[in-house]
């Protein structure tokens, strides 16, 4: 991962900056309220946000997915901070996944990785706290919670064929 500069914004949240190789700077302001601002800095005045787009938490996740970055979004706002070392990740189930099409019970994600699926987002709506008989269908999004290494392992299972 590239180096990201983190700056505290007292009373607001945290700002993350990324310098691109081409000399531009983009940033994300993570508000304590969950709001995210996507910020593009001016070429001539690198400290000035020439464009700033407000995103809800959900829109932020979607954009993260589109950019294809790390699916593990660490939440730094108050609400999730208290979870200490836990992270939450939104993982779209890929067709190549060895467990795509299996039920949660068959996939046994928790036993295999230590991370749990706390919700499934499907086309017909979300299923909070899905039971064992729910199926991990291709294209649905699983909300995975656990320590970072467990979430990473679960993400791999949901995205790639078994090694």
């Amino acid at each position, binding site marked *: 991962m590239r180096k990201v500069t983190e*700056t*505290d*914004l*007292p*009373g*607001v949240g945290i*700002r993350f*900056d990324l310098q691109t190789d081409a000399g531009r700077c983009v*940033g994300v*302001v993570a508000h*304590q*309220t969950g709001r995210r*601002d996507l*910020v593009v*800095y001016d070429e001539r*005045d*690198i*400290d*000035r*946000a020439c464009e*700033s787009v407000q995103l809800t938490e959900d829109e932020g996740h979607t954009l993260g997915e589109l950019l294809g970055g790390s699916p593990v979004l660490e939440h730094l706002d*108050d609400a999730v901070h*208290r979870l200490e070392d836990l992270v939450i990740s939104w993982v779209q189930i890929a067709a190549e996944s060895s467990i795509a099409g299996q039920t949660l019970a068959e996939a046994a994600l928790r036993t295999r990785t230590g991370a749990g699926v706390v919700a499934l987002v499907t086309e017909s709506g979300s299923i909070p706290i899905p039971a064992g008989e729910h199926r991990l269908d291709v294209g649905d999004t699983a909300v995975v919670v656990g320590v970072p290494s467990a979430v990473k392992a679960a993400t791999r299972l949901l995205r790639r064929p078994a090694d």
Partner: protein
Amino acid sequence: MDTGGDLLVIELGALVLALAIVARLARRIGLPALPLYLLAGLALGEGSLFELDASEDFIEVGAEIGVILMLLMLGLEFSTHELINNVRRSTLAGAVDLVLNFTPGFVAGLILGFDPVVAVLLGGVTYISSSGIVAKLVADLDRIGNHETSVVLSVLVIEDLAMVLYLPIVSGVLFGGSALSTVITVAISLAAVLGVLGVAYLLGDRLSAIALSQSSEALLLTLLGGTLLVAGLAGRLGVSTAVGAFVVGVALSGDIVSHARGLLLPLRNLFAAVFFVFFGLKVDLGLIPDVAVAALAIAAVTVVTKIASGWIAAARAGIGKPGRLRAGAALIAHGEFSIVIAELGIARESDLGALAATYVIVLTLVGAVLYQFADSITLPTRKRRVRT
């Protein structure tokens, strides 16, 4: 029927509606509402066309509640951990800001022949920027992502923290009487403030958990009652009600904070507006011409010193020149705290009220405009530098 009561309600209704118009106007022209509330207060005050009789006592109580709520909300913005981190990071920038901006007011106070305590108050008035107005300007202009904004916010946090030590000291000195009793009052207040902050640091989470309630009604009443009680007791101890309320805000953390903000914001907006009007009411319009020149001169000096402190703080954080200017311009706006401080001294020196009101109105309007146009100011100077 009690006609006095009716009159009170009518006056209050008219007043609040007038403020509503002022707030809309401010929004329309893109300026902070606070200076306009002050103007409204002046227009209604002593020696003016309209006089509020029936509701004056009520407004006075409302103003007191306004100060308490402003400080409570300010305290809620910070957790003790955040405060401590900030002090560690920005001590130097904070110190520069203090020296550069306290001095003009203090010196001006002495030149104007105020007694030294009042000069210290005037120093406080010129020192402290308005975190409320600045935060709003930053958000309205979409500059939260700007690199200099973190610097500006850090400086504001240090200033607010400095107020927590400054307010008990000056209240102690103002109301202390003899030298010995003054020292004792100041020592008690500082010990009380530091003690509560210490307790908040260690037990804040637990206190917040006790205060938290599922019912928003119960939560609101708990918060309001608890804060008023602590603030009142703090006032009794000579610590100043404002500091008591601030400390309560800092002590609360976690889940309760976002609930509390949502519940208290409308109340704060109402009572803060009442406070500014009340301050304006107390100012004798006849005094303003006498102090206008002094107020404008001090305002002009503070524009320069605030820009300098923002510039230095931003430069230390590695920010480029246009950003440094923006940081400086952001810090110009003064507001709630300056008025709270001036209010303490109004009994001792009646000129202070008129001076502070004029000063805050001018400086805040100038600051808001400068901050908005800071970018267009910078670019030409940079081009010139390239040519030479």
